[in-house]
């Protein structure tokens, strides 16, 4: 009986899977076109899965092994099952070895399933429940039933073992297994992640994120530009169908593991954002319906079941509720912790900014101080609305060389809009002192500099961003310099990663990187650190966005500081709350992100937290009853400067310039 039924069952399951896949593909194709190389992507997919994705998954060793056993066992078992039971190649080929292999594969899968089941007994809150709770049973059903139907094939049991009742029961279990694993995979069950995930890896919108045989993985963190010239191109994303098809595909790859949720600072602060829920809402929107079936942590303060949408309907309603509330989108600090944690390489931040673009450019609906900041940027080229002629006031006594006078220098010091901020002016002055001590040939743009456009872009005002960027690029094009150095990671990121698409290509360095180099070249010497315990806070736009984790630590080490690391540091650093315009849109939560971060600092017992970003400095210094002093790396370096050992100084000899160190600390 089995011999007859099995091939039919398997063929049916495969046919249903194809039907499901057709439906899924149709859903994705609602999205806008995207330029992806299909064949190249498919060819690259195995490596992307086995190397890049595995690299992320392997951060959790136990789950990684569980997945290898279960998924590896399943893929092998599925293929072998089709061969052995579908095509009946069991006994004939290689003296029945296929059957033995199938037994081994299904057994491996079963062992993996047991671990999945154990994981699901007391699942952490970040894991979604719902259909995911039945998945271990489905996995067991599939692996056990395949194992059982294969026992006669290899002769471990007689062909006619048991009664027809037993065979029927076994078949029923197999049907369950096949349904979940084949049909569910494409139609929309938990196993969807395997199908969508594989294609998502193949057709990912940021191919440059992945490693190649010749090199490690590149970072790809710059936002993609809107084509403002094309009248047909939508200004951002209004409805799910406005995403590109491969973005929609990417949403479908989500396994609802909630690693993003666990990493999201806004979620932890009780702001109405959960990256996992957001991705799931996009999945709901793409197929149409309500979020009622969602079985994970909701957006804090927002009950599940009250939102719905469809592919052609607005994501954010002008009034009332649609798929997602605007404040969910404005809660994001664009810190990329979710993207960094996502084992499926989903691009949450891209999606959020896409949707913000529509709200800002089409609705004109940026919350709180957003419109004021954008108006300021339009009117004054700086977010604070300060007199553009006052940009150099902080350096009135420093006699800084101007690019307009020198035309050509080694280093263009990009000041950033911290030039208007009294706190950051101290960092800038310290940096100038360091550059002068090392005899660096540098100049500033002075009043020709404009805001980099970071905040405008993160707030969705792509037009203002591009206007600022183009004018900065035009200014920079007038001068010759080897590199740009800045103490602002946001400027660093925008100049280095986002101006390229608009025609501005520069070598940009964060000041910590540059100072580390100067020190290595022997151009700076420091007196040993005498202060207390120090920790270091990785700015998101330096660390996760640009992969610079080591240089700041090298500088601190050179100062004689042994960094007392926070639990969340390096690529897992917790955001200060200052990115993405979040302090401007200021969506309320239960607590403040910088307070939580200062809590992390407190746990290290540090008296001082070293930072390398004006935003982080402002946010952390804004903490009431702060545990630690906040100092920029440039300030620590400037304080520690002593004459470098003779003969080690490189670079052109310069006359000593007066140094202004007016701030006494």
């Amino acid at each position, binding site marked *: 009986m089995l011999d007859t039924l099995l091939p039919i069952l398997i063929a049916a399951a495969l046919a249903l899977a194809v039907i499901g896949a057709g439906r899924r593909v149709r859903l994705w194709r609602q999205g806008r076109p995207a330029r992806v190389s299909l064949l190249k992507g498919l060819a690259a997919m195995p490596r992307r899965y086995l190397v890049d994705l595995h690299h992320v998954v392997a951060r959790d060793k136990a789950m990684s092994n569980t997945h290898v056993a279960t998924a590896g066992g399943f893929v092998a078992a599925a293929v072998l099952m089709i061969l052995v039971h579908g095509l009946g190649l069991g006994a004939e080929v290689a003296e029945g070895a296929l059957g033995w292999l199938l037994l081994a594969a299904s057994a491996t899968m079963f062992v993996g399933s047991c671990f999945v089941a154990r994981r699901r007994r007391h699942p952490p809150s970040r894991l979604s429940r719902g259909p995911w709770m039945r998945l271990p049973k489905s996995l067991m059903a599939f692996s056990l039933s395949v194992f059982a139907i294969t026992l006669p094939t290899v002769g471990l049991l007689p062909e006619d073992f048991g009664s027809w009742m037993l065979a029927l029961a076994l078949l029923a279990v197999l049907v369950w297994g096949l349904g979940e694993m084949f049909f569910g995979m494409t139609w929309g069950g938990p196993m969807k992640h395997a199908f969508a995930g594989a294609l998502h890896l193949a057709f990912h919108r940021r191919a440059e994120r992945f490693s190649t045989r010749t090199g490690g993985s590149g970072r790809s963190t710059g936002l993609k530009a809107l084509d403002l010239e094309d009248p047909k191109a939508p200004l951002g994303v209004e409805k799910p169908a406005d995403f590109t098809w491969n973005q929609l595909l990417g949403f479908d790859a989500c396994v609802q593991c909630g690693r993003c949720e666990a990493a999201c600072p806004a979620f932890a602060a009780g702001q109405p954002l959960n990256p996992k829920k957001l991705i799931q809402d996009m999945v709901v929107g793409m197929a149409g319906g309500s979020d009622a079936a969602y079985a994970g942590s909701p957006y804090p303060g927002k009950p599940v079941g009250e939102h719905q949408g469809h592919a052609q309907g607005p994501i954010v309603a002008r009034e009332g509720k649609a798929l997602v509330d605007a404040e969910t989108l404005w809660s994001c600090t664009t810190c990329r912790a979710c993207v960094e944690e996502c084992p499926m390489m989903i691009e949450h931040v891209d999606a959020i900014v896409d949707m913000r673009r529509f709200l800002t450019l089409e609705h004109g609906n940026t919350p709180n101080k957003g419109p004021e900041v954008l108006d300021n940027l339009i009117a004054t080229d700086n977010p*604070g609305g*300060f*007199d553009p002629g*006052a940009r150099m*006031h*902080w350096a*009135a*006594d*420093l006699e800084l060389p101007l690019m307009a006078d020198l035309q050509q220098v080694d280093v263009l010091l990009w000041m950033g809009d911290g030039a*208007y*901020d*009294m*706190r950051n*002016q*101290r960092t800038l002055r310290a940096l100038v002192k360091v550059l002068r001590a090392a005899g660096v040939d540098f100049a500033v743009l002075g009043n020709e500099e404009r805001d980099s456009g970071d905040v405008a872009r993160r707030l969705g005002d792509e037009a203002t961003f591009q206007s600022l960027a183009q004018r900065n690029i035009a200014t920079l094009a007038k001068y010759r310099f080897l590199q740009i150095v800045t103490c602002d990671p946001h400027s660093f990121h925008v100049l280095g990663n986002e101006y390229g698409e608009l025609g501005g290509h520069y070598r940009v360095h964060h000041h910590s990187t540059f100072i580390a180099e100067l020190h290595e070249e022997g151009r700076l010497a420091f007196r040993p650190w*005498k202060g207390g315990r120090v920790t270091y806070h990785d700015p998101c736009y330096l660390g996760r966005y640009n992969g610079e984790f080591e240089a700041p630590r090298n500088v601190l080490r050179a100062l004689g500081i042994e960094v007392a690391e926070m639990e969340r540091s390096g690529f897992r650093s917790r955001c200060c709350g200052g990115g993405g315009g979040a302090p401007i849109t200021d969506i309320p939560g239960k607590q403040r992100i910088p307070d939580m971060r200062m809590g992390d600092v407190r746990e290290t017992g540090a008296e001082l937290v070293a930072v390398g970003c004006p935003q982080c400095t402002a946010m952390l210094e804004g903490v009431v009853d702060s545990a630690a002093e906040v100092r920029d790396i440039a300030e620590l370096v400037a304080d520690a400067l002593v004459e470098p050992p003779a003969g080690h100084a490189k670079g052109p000899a310069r006359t000593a310039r*007066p*140094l*202004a*160190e*007016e*701030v*006494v*600390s």
Partner: protein
Amino acid sequence: MAFDAIFQPIQIGNLTIRNRVVSTAHAEVHATDGGMTTDRYVKYYEEKAKGGCGLCICGGSSVVSIDSPQGWWSSVNLATDRIIPHFQNLADAVHKHGGKIMIQITHMGRRSRWDGFDWSTLVSPSGIREPVHRSTCKTIEEEDIWRIIGDFAQAARRAKAGGLDGVELSAVHQHLIDQFWSPRVNKREDQWGGSFENRMRFGMEVLKAVRAEVGDDFVVGMRICGDEFHPDGLSHEDMKQIAAYYDATGQVDFFGVIGSGCDTHDTLANVIPNMAYPPEPFLHLAAGIKEVVKAPVIHAQNIKDPNQAERILEGGYVDLVGMTRAHIADPHLIAKIKMGQVDQIKQCVGANYCIDRQYQGLDVLCIQNAATSREYMGLPHIIEPSEGPTRTVVVVGGGPGGMEAARVAAERGHAVTLFEAADSLGGQITTASKAPQRDQIAGITRWYQLELARLGVDQRLGTRADEATILDLRPDIVVLATGGHPFLEQHPEWGYSENPEESLVVSTWDILNGRVEPGKNVLIYDAICEFSGMSAADYLADKGAKVEIVTDDIKPGAAVGGTTFPTYYRSLYQKEVIMTSDLMLHRVYREGDALVAVLENEYTGTQEERVVDQVVVENGVRPDEALYYALKPRSRNRGQVDLEALYAIQPQPCLSEEGEGPLLFRLGDCSAPRNTHAAIYDALRLCKDF
């Protein structure tokens, strides 16, 4: 960006000043050795530049000629090339921190003294005596005039050669230039007097000669008065005409404007307004000058607070604000604004201890900041934390000495407990602040309150510490600053008793603190002639009492400084307080409901009586020593301060010695009655090495 008006740079001549805050010219009284600037002088200005001050104009009344004596106020002498290398040190020290520095140059004419040093013959346009310095002078001759014009030019050359950024010609405070301007003093009928142009001529020739000497790339400014406030002097309209006249030459790079003339005691008090004045009382005069000139205008007079400065600048009344006493109180004022530490700025309270010392020919010091002008000795404005052991420090007494001791010890990182018997900090400052027009002195306490709270000092207010409570804390160091009490028990004939029912006399503290009701007909006997007696008289008169203040000294308030006794006198005369000198309080007795005070003339022995209902005696402070002598035998150092170390600003040797029992020190009035500065200075130099 907060304080953007303050931090907007400004161009003066070819010079960029980094912000709008100026330390204007004042006599420092520490240029020595014939008027050469000293290390002390350099360090004093370097501290301001380090603290972020935009422009320092140093050397108030620095002289250009040999017949304008510099010795009386140890002012800078620009009459010799010897000054040039000294200027180079000064300029380097200020420029190193991004600041700019200019010097005021002047010939003081008749406004000096002739009875010392070279026994100079002072000069003035018409030889009229100057009352404040009691100085007589000769009528200046044509030859003197041209010699002095040449001296101005040479002095400016020396300033430029020394690397300074500019000079300010003093045509204020009735110096020689404005002696020529003012018809009150200039009665000449030749080309140097009479008509407007003639009176302007001397100043104009000075300006031309200076400009010709230094060229265009050196700042030359002018400090003028906004209104002499004398009916026969220069009015505000006159001064606008003068300012416009000089401005029209295009040769003046800035004008500094001061309200009020100053050749009488009363007008002198206007020039450096003490705490009796409202904020920026003469800003309108400077604004009036700004209306008529193109050059930037600086104004300094009672601008003490960053918000006030910002408001004045934002309003566009003037281009730069002088915050001179504000910088004497806290040379890091600008840095603290930039650090977001506005609450930590030690704000000038207008006690005018600085300027009143200067008028006595003493070095300028701050009543509340003992480090100012002692930078060269190594006294710090910013106390560094100790690298040694953390000690338990108990300070007893929350007056100025105790508050400073607690602050400094806490800045050093020690665990500090401060006991104060009263319910709030301040000690005698609190009493002083109760008098009319004297409330601002409480600003000294306010700063300490903020600092002690910031530093986490354990403040036990309303707690009288005794031997047991102190020793229970197992202190490493005990600092006693318990002050004293009014010394009424000195003469039994005065009838003082500790029982208020029986005592025939009360103290000025009783009056000011409201412990006794003001009488209706009151005699104040003031043997001290400082602030307390005057304040009590003003307080009582303010409450409606008929008051006579009697002293055996040369006049009531004789020991109050030159910029403060006039504000007392204005108030007391207005309230018809009778001021009587040369009488001692011999005896007080009761007659029915009334009190009879028997007064005796110091010079004749003649006795006279006053029948009053209240006798208030101010006889200074008697130290409270009981606690000290109780603790002394238990202390390791037997309460002794090593004076050599103290005066050399060195650590007390006993700090590094081992032994049993706490170290014990006492300072302020509980040792010997002195003043606020003395208590704070002792506390700072003693505790900075804890």
